[in-house]
């Protein structure tokens, strides 16, 4: 069986180092807001070239806290609008609605699956306060047009960097491009903890200061609460694990790029639409997922399953069709809905063997019309 994601194998690579730092944390007797967190936050800031990194409980909380921080700063208030791609994972939307802000769903570009930047301006109203770009599947969503639009309308750009850590746009890393970024270190991510974890990254000192407090019950001084905050902290164990794994992130991303290149050069099946990107020249994609499109998804997924290849769909239901957002049920986003009906993801990970990668491509090429 070729697993879609083999977390055991992935963490076994570094098990000696992971066990060593776990022992250090256990022996320290200090499990929250300690030296390991400080160390990871410094390393992450250096890696992304940002001034501030704040470890939080998970990627969703990172986005929630950024928006909550901007509300506390008076940058936005209840009912204000945030432009967001219609085809994102639900966490992006939850972060917005949790803060009683209004997501304005905008169609993606069919070639990148990322927010169609050319459609932003026509969706801006007097209540628009931010654009939340999602670097979906590991590919950066960024352009000069985006920067100019945000500048012209005085909008914040918030990155949902849950899937793209390590990707670069003009030698700047995702997570450092916008006014603030929410990062996820869910175990399956390119930089994955051994549990839930996330971080806010920003160059904005005021926002960083507020987010630190908001993630700790809204408190800067124990038992004194400046804000109605959350309990969302990156614990010492996860911070220590992430410090170990951050060292290997770039090298692992290079393996992902090599596998993606092999897939793009080798998979030749008229029923499958491959990602449209120059993998060698373009460092804007770190291949968290290798997503392809087909009009015969069910048939192909069954064929792959019978050949012992695990696949997943990212994602089967778009946010506007989720029960959680039943008020949007009548809305229609044609490109988004087509994507959700047609995409599936094949295995890509830095621990796949050469034989596994070759088999995935071979089996896909053998699928008959």
């Amino acid at each position, binding site marked *: 069986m070729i697993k879609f994601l083999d977390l055991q194998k992935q963490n076994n*690579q*570094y098990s000696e180092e992971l066990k060593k730092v776990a022992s250090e944390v256990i022996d320290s007797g200090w499990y929250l807001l300690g030296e390991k967190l400080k160390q990871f936050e410094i390393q992450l800031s250096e890696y992304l070239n940002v001034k501030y990194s704040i470890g939080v409980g998970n990627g969703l909380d990172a986005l929630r806290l950024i928006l909550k921080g901007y509300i506390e700063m008076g940058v936005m208030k209840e009912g204000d609008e945030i432009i967001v791609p219609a085809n994102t994972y639900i966490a992006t939307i939850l972060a917005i609605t949790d803060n009683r802000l209004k997501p304005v769903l905008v169609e993606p570009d069919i070639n990148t699956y990322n927010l169609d930047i050319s459609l932003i301006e026509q969706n801006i109203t007097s209540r628009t306060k931010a654009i939340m770009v999602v670097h979906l599947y590991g590919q950066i969503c960024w352009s000069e047009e985006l920067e100019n639009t945000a500048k012209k309308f005085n909008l914040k750009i918030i990155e949902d960097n849950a899937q793209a850590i390590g990707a670069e746009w003009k030698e700047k890393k995702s997570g450092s491009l916008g006014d603030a970024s929410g990062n996820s270190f869910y175990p399956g991510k390119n930089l994955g903890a051994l549990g839930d974890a996330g971080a806010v990254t920003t160059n904005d000192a005021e926002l960083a200061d507020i987010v630190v407090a908001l993630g700790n019950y809204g408190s800067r001084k124990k038992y004194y609460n400046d804000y109605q905050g959350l309990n969302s902290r990156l614990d010492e164990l996860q911070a220590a694990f992430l410090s170990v794994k951050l060292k*290997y992130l770039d*090298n*692992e991303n*290079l*393996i992902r*790029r*090599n*596998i993606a*290149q*092999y897939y793009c050069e080798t998979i030749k099946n008229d029923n499958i639409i491959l990602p449209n990107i120059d993998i*060698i020249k373009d460092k804007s994609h770190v291949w968290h997922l290798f997503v392809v499109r087909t009009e015969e998804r069910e048939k192909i997924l069954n064929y792959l399953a019978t050949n012992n290849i695990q696949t997943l769909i990212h994602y089967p239901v778009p946010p506007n069709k989720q029960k959680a957002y039943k008020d949007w049920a009548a809305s229609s986003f044609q490109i988004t809905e087509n994507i959700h009906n047609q995409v599936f993801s094949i295995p890509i990970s*830095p*621990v796949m063997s*050469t034989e596994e*990668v*070759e088999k995935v491509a071979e089996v896909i090429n053998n699928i008959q019309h």
Partner: protein
Amino acid sequence: MILTGKFAKLRPITVSDAQITLKWRLSDRAKFMQSGAKTLKQQENWIKNAVKKTNEITFIIEYCNRPVGMIAICNINNNYKNCSLERLLIGEILIVGNIPVAFESELLLCDYIFNELNMHKINGDVMEDNKNMIEFRKYVGYSFDGVLRDQYIFNGEYKNTNLVSLLEEEYVNKCRPKLLGLIRLSQM
């Protein structure tokens, strides 16, 4: 002893590497290497013998803690202060792609040879059909010292091999900067 770079980590080979190294040795990429084991048992025995030798060290090249290739220092001669660099083979080429693991492995090993083993010269030989390796050795500054006629049988034909060498000063002044340049170039 473990040698660690930005991309490559070199560690001594062990018998547990027999399966993967046999796969590499039997692949087309190893066609210019001298013929070796054909079965797992033979490969295990070859490794058992290799690790006992006092005048050679075979390394497994790891990338992200996974084995991707091998390289060896052989014929270590402490009297005359020379040795040979052999068996460079990247087995997992799909995984490694353009990542400069081979260049960095060579750099790590040359540093070790000249700085730790205090050698004066590295020897090598490159079969005449191995055009890419000949070009590479020329580019990084190896001296081509002569030809051994009909030294190997390859595809049923006798083949000449080129004797090459690199002195310490040539390594420091030419080869090392070129290897560093190739590593940098691969990252662009």
